[in-house]
Structure formats: C-alpha cells, structure tokens
C-alpha cells in the first residue's frame, strides 16, 4: 500500500530550479534511499515529501491527503504526530539533556513529563545510549548525539521517518552501527523511511533506491547501489 506519493513535483529557489517534475511512490514499511550528487534536489524532495516545503507545482499525497494544499499549521501538526525527521547535525537543543531532547515531541503532544521521560529513556536504551540520558549534547560524541536525535525522531512512533544524510557527520564504523540499529528499529515498528544519502553503503541499507540528477529522476536508473553493489545485511 502506498503511503507517500509525489506527482510531478516542481520546486525552485528564486530562478534556480531544484526539482523539475519528480514523481515517486513510497510503500508503507518500505525503506527508500534517495541518492544523487550534491545539488541534485535530494533534500528539497525530502522537504516537500515531509511537508516542510510546499512545492511550486505538482502534488504530494500522504495516503489520500494532499499535503501541498494544507496550511503550515496543519503540516506542522502532521510532522509532529505522524512523521519523524532526522538531520545530519544540529538538531538537538543544546541546553536540554538527552532524555529531555527525546521527550520533547511527547511533551508537545501533551504527554505527562514522567511518562515522556520513561518513554525517552526506553528509546535511548533501544539505541544503546541510555547511559547518556542525563547528559547534554555538548558532552556527547557525534555518534551519541545522532543516536539521541534518532530516538527523538522515533519516540512518537511516527508512520514515516525522513532522514537527511543521518550519518553524514559520522565516521564509517559509527555510521554502520547507527544504521544497523536504525534499520532494526524501523523494521520492528514497520516505519516507512525516506533516506537521503550520497553514500553507497548507506543506500545499501534501503529496500529500494531512487536516483536523482539535476532535479529529475535519473533516466539511467543506475543508483549508487547498482554501481557499487548492495550492502550485505
């Protein structure tokens, strides 16, 4: 069953086109890697699919709902309740502890503090960083920070997780560990994942790869995994 659809999505920044009519479908529970060189429109596509940006033309559907026609307030509520978003770096609030950072989406949804903290610590535990629950981001390693960010993106048990280069700032070993844990968790939860990457190893964790080039689907159909071989899982 298709959970996300983009139909002829066009998006420009001023006079610079970023997407030139991209059409993709994402099935429920699927992990899709969007790959391509720098500036090909990967992040813009993710932002359009997640309702962070509104496309200039085309449609974005979440189930049967046209996200591109929704107000920012409605899209923000959707991102808070149904979607999880994970970025390369900088998303943790420096002054909050890891547990508080992870609990934030639950608190916003009205969950009590004690309950939210318990859930947050459980998620930190699932991602192997329960020991830093009371530590602030500035005192954590990059890998620990990214695990916390992953826990925060997943704590509200979203139906879709959008991850923009989630391991881009990590070394290859930490990156593989995090991806292994992420894939295990999202498979357990049956969470759909849209993953942006320019790394073949990362793309190898996905069920399917969509390659972009100059704001369009790559007509050759040859993504990173086709060129470099799929990662063994």
């Amino acid at each position, binding site marked *: 069953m298709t959970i996300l659809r983009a139909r002829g999505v066009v998006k420009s920044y001023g006079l610079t086109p970023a997407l030139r009519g991209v059409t993709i479908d994402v099935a429920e529970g699927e992990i899709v890697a969007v790959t391509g060189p720098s500036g090909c429109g990967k*992040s813009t596509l993710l*932002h359009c699919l*997640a309702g*962070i*940006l509104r496309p200039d033309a085309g449609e974005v559907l979440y189930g049967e709902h046209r996200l591109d026609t929704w107000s920012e*307030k409605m899209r*923000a*509520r*959707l*991102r*808070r*309740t149904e*979607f*999880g*978003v994970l*970025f*390369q*770096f*900088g*998303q*943790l*609030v*420096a*002054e*909050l*502890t890891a547990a*508080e950072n992870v609990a*934030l*989406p639950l*608190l*916003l949804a009205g969950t*009590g*503090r004690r309950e939210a903290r318990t859930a947050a610590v459980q998620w930190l535990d699932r991602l192997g960083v329960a020991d830093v629950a009371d530590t*602030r981001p500035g005192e954590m390693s990059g890998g620990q920070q990214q695990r916390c960010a992953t826990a*925060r*993106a997943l704590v509200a048990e979203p139906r879709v997780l959008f991850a*923009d*280069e989630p391991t*881009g700032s990590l070394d290859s070993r930490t990156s593989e560990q995090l991806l292994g844990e992420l894939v295990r968790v999202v498979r357990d939860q049956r969470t759909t994942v849209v993953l942006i990457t320019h790394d073949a190893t990362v793309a190898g964790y996905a069920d399917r790869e969509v390659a972009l080039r100059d704001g369009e689907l790559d007509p050759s159909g040859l993504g990173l995994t086709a060129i470099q071989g799929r990662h063994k899982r």
Partner: protein
Amino acid sequence: MKPSSLLRLALAGSRTDGLRVALTAVSAALATLVILAALTVIAIPELGDRVNNERYVNALLDEPGLRGGTAITLILLTIPILALAGQCARLGAPARDRRLAGFRLAGASPGQALLIAIAETGVAALLGSGAGTAVYFAARPLLDLPGPDGRLPLPTDVLPSPVAITVILVALPLVAALAAAALLRRVVIGPLGVVRQARRTRPPLPWPGALILLGLIGTGSVLPIWRWYEARQSQPPDWLIVPIAFGGALCAILGVILGTGWISYTTGRLLHRFGRRPSVLLAARRLTTDPWHGGRTFAALLACVIVGAGAACMRGYFQIMRNLELAEMVDDSGRFVPSTDNFYLATMNLVDLAIVVALVIAAGGLLVAVGEGIVSRRRAYAALVASGVPRGVLARSILWQALAPVVPSVVLALVVGTQLVGPTIGDEVQNYNRSAPYVLPLDTIATYGVLAVAAVAAAVGVGLLFLRGSTAVEELRTG
C-alpha cells in the same frame, strides 16, 4: 603584521560583522557625546562659592552646587550605553569565531588572531568616538540659542579643554579594546575553531545578597552619622559621607546585578520542577545552563530600575516639601507670591527623563541579545520547526526565559533602590516650620518596575521577529 594589514583583517567580514562594527561605533559615539556633555558642564567657570553664573536658563547649569550632580547624572548615562556596546560585541560571535579560526589556519599566531579581534573593537570605537566628537562640535552652533535675557539653554559658550577632549578621543577606544581583550581572556583561538574555557561548573550562590546588605547598611548609616555630627553642632566631613553613600550604593547595585545569576538559576530550577509545558521546560533548562545570561543582559536595565526607585523616593520627598510650601503660601499669602514653578520637582522631571532614556538604551541592548540568541541557535530551532514544533512554542520559551528571571530581579531592584534612598530621608519631612510624615510614593516606584518589565517584553517581542527567518528550512541544508 603591519598596521594596515591588521586594520584590513580587523574590518574584513560578513554583513553581521559590519553590523557589529557599526553598532559598536554608534555606542562609542553616544558615550563620547554624553561624556563631552558632562565635561562641558564641568568646564563652566566657578565664580565663587555659592555664586550663580547668571548665564544659563536652568539652575542645574547656573548654580555651582548643582553642576557636579548634573555632570554625574550625564556620566551615569554611559552605563546603559556601555552595556549596549557589550551586547553589540557578542553579535555574530560564531561567524567571527570561524573567521578568526580561518586566520589561524592561514598561519596567524594565537596572539595575532587575538590582536585582530581586539583591533576590530578598538577601531570601531575610535571611529565612533571620532564621529561623536564631530557631532558635538557640529551641534554646538545649532544649539546656541540665547533667550531674550541673553541666557543660554545649554552651555554652548564654554568648551572642555583640548587636553580633556583628546583624552576622551583616545581613552574610549583604548578602554573598549581593553574590555574586548578582557572578554577574550578565556578564549583559545585555534585553527579548527574557537574554544571558550568553561568558567563555572558550580551553580551560582546567593552571596551577592551580602553585597546588597553591606550596601544598604552603608547608605542607611548616612543619616545617623549626620545626626551624630549635627548633635555636636558640626557637619560630617565629605571624606566620610561621600564614600559611605556612593560606595554603599555601588555595592548594592553590584549585588543586584550579580544576584541575577542566582535568581535566574533558582527560577530555572523552579520552572523545571513545576513547569509542565515544553516551552517552560526549554526556558528552565536555558536558565540553569547559563544563569549569568540574565546578569549580562539585564545589568543596565536593573541599574536603571534601582536609580529610578531611588529617584522616585526623592520625588516623593520633594513633593511633600512642595505641599508644605504651598500650605505655607496659602496661610501666609501676605509674605509669599504664589508660584507654580518648583525647581526640585522640575529637576526630578529631568532625572526621570534621563532614566527613561537609559531604560530605552538598555532595552536596545536587550534586543540585540535576544536577536543574537535566536540567530546563534537557528539550526536547532529550524530542526525543531521541521519536526513539527510550532514556532509559538519556541517564541514562548524565549519569552519565559527573559521574563521569568527579570520579574523577581526587577522587584529586588525596586526594593534595593527604595531602601538606598528611603532611610536617608527619614520618617518626617520638614519645611517652613511645618512637618508631614514621609510616605513612600509606591505608585511611582511601581511605574518604574512596570516600565522595565514592559521594556523587556517589548524587546523580546521585537527580537522574535528574527525567529521566522532563523527557522527557515535553508538552515537545515547540509551544504
């Protein structure tokens, strides 16, 4: 490094760096103007003890006994201006840090990188003090407007000595550069970035309360000392009274400003303990993580509130004096010509105006601090908004962070300001052989508190305009 290279590197930077230099220069220009105005008042020639010059409209300039106070009031105005300069120096700090790290990567020594950072502030202050001096000289002929009796509204007929003007022109940039060096003393500029050595690991303690107490005891002892000397038909010497009064006031003001750290931390802890909403939690954590933020940003504002509360007490005193005078005029109309003019109350109007101007300047510094805080956290904010956190939650957290510590701090400042002046007045006011009990003008005192909190709320409100731009999705692009 040649001076020309130093100048080029000091002033090379982004638009934010340019804005920081411009605001620092504006602050220096304002400070120069205020100091030159004070020096001009001091330059009015003394014709003898208690002999008026009969050249100026306002007695504050004409009476030798009042000129010192006028000059001190003007110099006090530099406090919020310098606080504004301090806030401006923090503007765009992360980008400046990256630029300095870039110099180190290109081969600059740590000392050279530090020199560039100090030179930026020094050069900006030099430009500002030069501009301030130019404005001073340009404004003098325009303000030289003698009345029909030949009296001047401002002392445009006298000039500070050329030596004094030169000293100001040189000293202000020098002080600014030294202050920049002091601020950077814990900063290590490396090729990979700037590291700030952590200063405090322990939470702030309430020891500034002792400073406040000491200050209040000092100023509270002025009246008993005075009475002791009076009982012996003499007056206390200036060397005794002036240090006790001014030292006490300074001690108490310092105590309030430093006490903001403890107040912020305690407020943060209370909010964290009892707050339920995410915005409150965010604000609480920021307050406990950096409790000195309040002390840095509200220092000038709190100083204004203390002075304002003290001025309100004085106004209350003069108002009772005036009431007694008017009562005497009514009862003894044969001896008095009723007059609506009252020098002391008119002077208090000027003092109030100066305090409001200082409050506005302090609010300007606060606005810079709020804007800077938002811009420096833009990536985390943008990520939160992208995750669906409403901007309203972030806006409320910023408002909580500002108002939660400021309300108790302002209340403390009002109490301290009142206690600094109130005891020196006593319980009774006497005039023309009449007396009346002294009643604190609580409404005027409260007005200063409301004004200060309103100034903070307004500054935060304007600062929040930066929030939308700082949470734009472009902040999340990985490059």
